[in-house]
């Protein structure tokens, strides 16, 4: 014999006095709202802001990376970065809509980003020079992380328009997207075309910002 859902739960109704009060408050404060645009529109908007902000942040330090690359390398490198921005922006947008289908997990999004950037760097720049690896890498990591701060602020503003049901995942996605912007700024600026440098110090920006996002998300969840 199957167990039965007790009467207490199966037919339970909320307190009628409170329900009347709730209905009254709810109806009184009903005002028209502007709905969120479609996911595709928000993703494209995100990517548009991403490109503009990356260019704006690379401008003060110079586009030496862009100038030093071949035309083919430019197309491949920036296309991959744009594609990853689209994927991560999709993750951010999904997190803003409660009950929306989740197509990618935050950890997978972060790993995919780092892996694809590393593979692209290895294929495009088969130079494994590690001369002055740390002294030349630290400024890149620092500028990448600094560049991701305004991106994180803008992502937070965007997320505020939605309703976050999973602060941890949302913060990791936000952190990864901001970190990718830092990496994009470095791809425009940095003239060091060595795979280990790009994999450790440029992709490292995404690791740092994603971990920061994870900490922020955990903090928000505990509040």
């Amino acid at each position, binding site marked *: *014999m*199957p*167990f*039965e*859902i*007790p009467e*207490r*739960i*199966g037919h*339970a*109704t*909320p*307190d009628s006095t*409170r*329900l009347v009060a*709730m*209905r009254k408050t*709810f*109806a*009184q*404060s*009903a*005002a*028209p*709202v*502007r*709905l*969120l645009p*479609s996911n595709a529109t928000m993703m494209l908007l995100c990517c548009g802001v991403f490109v503009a902000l990356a260019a704006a942040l690379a401008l003060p330090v110079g586009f030496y990376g862009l100038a030093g690359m071949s035309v083919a390398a430019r197309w491949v490198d920036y296309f991959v970065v744009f594609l990853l921005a689209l994927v991560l922006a999709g993750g951010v947008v999904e997190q*803003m*809509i*409660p*009950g*929306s*289908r*989740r197509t990618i997990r935050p950890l997978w999004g972060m790993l995919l980003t780092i892996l694809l950037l590393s593979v692209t760097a290895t294929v495009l720049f088969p130079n494994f020079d590690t001369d002055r690896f740390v002294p030349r890498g630290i400024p890149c990591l620092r500028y990448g992380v600094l560049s991701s701060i305004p991106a994180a602020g803008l992502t937070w503003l965007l997320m505020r*328009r*939605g*309703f976050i*049901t*999973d602060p941890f*995942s949302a913060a990791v996605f936000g952190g990864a997207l901001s970190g990718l912007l830092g990496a994009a700024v470095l791809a425009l600026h940095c003239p060091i075309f060595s795979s280990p440098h790009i994999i450790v110090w440029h992709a490292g920006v995404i690791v740092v910002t994603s971990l920061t996002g994870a900490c922020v998300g955990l903090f928000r*969840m*505990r509040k």
Partner: protein
Amino acid sequence: MANYQQGDRAAAGLLVDTLSPQFFRFFLGQVRSRELADDLLQDFWLRIHSARQTYRPADPLLPWMYAIARRVRIDQYRRSRNRSGREMQVERLPEVPAPDPDEAGNVDFETLLAALPESQREVIVMLKVSGLSVEEVARATGSSAGSVKQKAHRAYEKLRILLGGTGHAV
């Protein structure tokens, strides 16, 4: 819901009237206290109100609402856990024995649910009490349908073990 988003007051009232009992049962299935379930329901409607711009009329309504209800429940759980962590127990409370099956052979549903981990209990309440489909539960919990099926399967396995002695089927 679409009318409510456009500021229709009657639609807002209708929404509260129609869906409150269902969400009240969802909360009651997890917290076991009518008063707390009423509080959660109130909090839930406040959040629905502040998040109403995120609902798209083309999407299914229930997963959207359950995702918010789930958030309300999680926040309440964390608040109570934080509070109980700070409070000192002044005296030892007597342990309540688990109720036995009644004369008709029915096993207390809440006692069984209490034995399940939070994530499995939530899935069982959504599937069995609220009557959502696997796909709707997946959307509400932000996971995949496979993950929901796995949690439900594990919960059923555990319930089978718990009911094993009484010969009940799940």
